[in-house]
């Protein structure tokens, strides 16, 4: 029974979603909770069971077919992300919980997305991966456009077409790999690559195209335009889900595919360092300029994605990147949940029109401050641990170190700007009565502290990494943080607050759809050119 858990992770949410959609009862939300409990229990039992085999990974073939079947693989990377997914879905379901009114249609898409995303994290078959990526794109589009407002629908179309173009690019890579190796099983391909001559053109082209497709899904530098659009207009719970997790789907594939291509030894690490740096810098720059609270948080996601990519390519293993994936999912979820409550209470997304939050909503303010401390990397919070791991790896290269420091200053400036909503006189607001929404905020805040303080033992047990090199209880850690925030404050005070012409122009900056695709084609061309030059 237990060995069938991987397929049950996919089937239980999907089947529950269909039942919810068909019954449309008042009890839909309880049904969703019930499915969620089953999946959680199953995940705990299964992962405790297979924990000794985490290094090589446990492979499950759907329908008991042997190598020709669809394999689902669970190793430590998938296990961490599957657990994180289940946790984030718990938070979203609790956040969306209303005792009196159920939304069966919304729950249908939400749970369907959970099943599909758990499939994406486990599958070890390239075509299956394509199917799950495309399904994720379609369902996310529907969730983004769910409010049926003009702005959300246009963001949905933009997201759908740009991501489909990316995923199709990925599919060409799959076709080329099938043409070379005669299989689409990732492990078989990895084995086949070991006997390959270095600089194999078709495999190189496949690598380039797959990386380009994944870059769109992970919103890397030239092809990020869909992210602030989609995350800025979706419902807050959906934004938390998208920024916290769905973007990480692309990063997960980045780790997985680089693992698959590792025997072929394509040296793209420097290239992706600069792509990550450009992503992080653009994210910080635009986040500082925004007035819309959700667009600001969306651009900040871009910054963190860039940092994750920098962490992945600068270290020999994926420890720092994976830690930051988990930590970012926590604090960005927290910030989006809090932003959702603030927007519903103040009925505006413009942060210049919100003030006196500390007086009108003290509890939400405290949780929001915790989230902001975590994302800017304050000591004792989880954000510090992963950011310190990333910056420590760059310590030998001063240029790169200060570039990342610049990113942190930009990020600090954006959050100094956001923190201005806490002060000032109390503006007109509506009462907030939904106490269920406070629960996820409290749980995630606690998690931020726990991951920040007990990082050594948690890193050992959950991730299997040794993170004892990072010590948050030092004077240097605190001093660096204070210097970063001070620079951020200066940047905010002198450049952004006066709201000059340049700031306003940058705020209105958008990438049109054809330009986004043009950039995508250029990005693919640069990747290909880089491969040919190597």
């Amino acid at each position, binding site marked *: 029974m237990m060995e069938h858990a991987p397929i049950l992770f996919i089937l239980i949410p999907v089947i529950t979603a269909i039942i919810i959609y068909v019954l449309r009862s008042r009890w839909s939300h309880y049904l969703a909770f019930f499915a969620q409990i089953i999946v959680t229990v199953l995940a705990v039992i299964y992962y405790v069971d297979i924990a000794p085999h985490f290094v090589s990974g446990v492979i499950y073939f759907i329908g008991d077919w042997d190598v020709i079947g669809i394999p689902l693989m669970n190793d430590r990377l998938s296990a961490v992300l599957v657990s994180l997914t289940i946790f984030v879905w718990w938070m979203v379901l609790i956040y969306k919980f209303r005792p009196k009114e159920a939304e069966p249609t919304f729950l249908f898409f939400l749970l369907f997305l959970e099943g599909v995303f758990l499939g994406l994290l486990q599958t070890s078959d390239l*075509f299956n991966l394509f199917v799950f990526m495309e399904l994720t*794109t*379609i369902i996310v*589009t*529907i969730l983004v*456009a769910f409010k049926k407002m003009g702005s959300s629908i246009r963001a949905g179309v933009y997201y759908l077409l740009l991501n489909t*173009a990316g995923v199709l690019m990925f599919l060409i890579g799959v076709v080329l790999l099938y043409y070379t190796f005669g299989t*689409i099983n990732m492990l078989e391909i990895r084995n086949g690559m070991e006997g390959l001559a270095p600089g194999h053109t078709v495999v190189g082209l496949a690598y380039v195209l797959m990386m380009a497709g994944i870059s769109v899904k992970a919103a890397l530098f030239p092809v990020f335009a869909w992210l602030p659009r989609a995350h800025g207009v979706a419902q807050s719970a959906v934004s938390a889900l998208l920024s916290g997790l769905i973007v990480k789907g692309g990063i997960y594939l980045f780790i997985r595919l680089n693992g698959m291509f590792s025997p072929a030894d394509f040296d793209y690490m420097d290239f992706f360092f600069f792509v990550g740096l450009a992503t992080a810098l653009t994210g910080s720059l635009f986040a500082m300029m925004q007035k819309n609270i959700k667009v600001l948080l969306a651009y900040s996601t871009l910054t963190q994605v860039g940092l994750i990519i920098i962490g992945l390519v600068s270290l020999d293993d994926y420890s720092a990147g994976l830690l930051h994936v988990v930590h970012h999912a926590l604090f960005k979820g927290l910030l989006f949940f809090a932003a959702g409550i603030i927007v519903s209470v103040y009925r505006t997304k413009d942060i210049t029109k919100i003030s006196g939050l500390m007086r009108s909503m003290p509890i939400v303010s405290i949780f929001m401050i915790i989230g902001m401390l975590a994302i800017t990397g304050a000591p004792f919070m989880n954000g510090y641990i992963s950011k310190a791991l990333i910056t420590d790896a760059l310590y030998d290269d001063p240029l790169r170190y200060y570039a990342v420091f610049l990113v942190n200053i930009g990020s600090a400036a954006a959050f100094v700007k956001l923190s201005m909503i806490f002060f000032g006189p109390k503006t007109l607001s509506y009462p907030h009565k939904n106490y269920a929404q406070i629960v996820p905020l409290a749980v995630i805040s606690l998690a931020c502290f726990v991951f920040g303080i007990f990082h050594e033992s948690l890193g050992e047990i959950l991730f299997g990494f040794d993170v004892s090199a990072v010590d948050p209880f030092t004077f240097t850690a605190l001093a660096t943080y204070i210097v970063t925030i001070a620079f951020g404050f200066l940047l905010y005070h002198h450049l952004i607050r006066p709201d000059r012409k340049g700031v306003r122009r940058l705020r209105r900056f958008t990438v049109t759809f*054809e330009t986004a695709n*043009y950039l995508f084609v250029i990005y693919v061309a640069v990747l290909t050119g880089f491969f040919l030059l190597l």
Partner: protein
Amino acid sequence: MNPILTFIVVLIGFYGLATSKNIIKSVFCVTIIESGIILLFLNLGNFQGGGIPILNGEADAIVDPLPQALMITTIVIGSTVTALSLMLCIKLFHRYGSIEWAQILRREDVE
């Protein structure tokens, strides 16, 4: 059909995506890219004189069945994407009165 020709179909699709200013045309371009990929994949498993991959006991010279099985799925997904994006286009036209990217993206938020 030559694999190079199918690549050209894919490139035409990307050229269209990078230049067309109309949402409907963008949707068509995605469909064109997809058709190109389907043709490319079917090509790789095909050869002159290959039979259909249904075996009646005796092993004949048959074409590779895997690309055909996979491409059926791709066609299904492609039709879903097309249907969804065309539906969203209709909604956009009702709200903005236009299906040009530039006009829709530049407009302020409307309910």
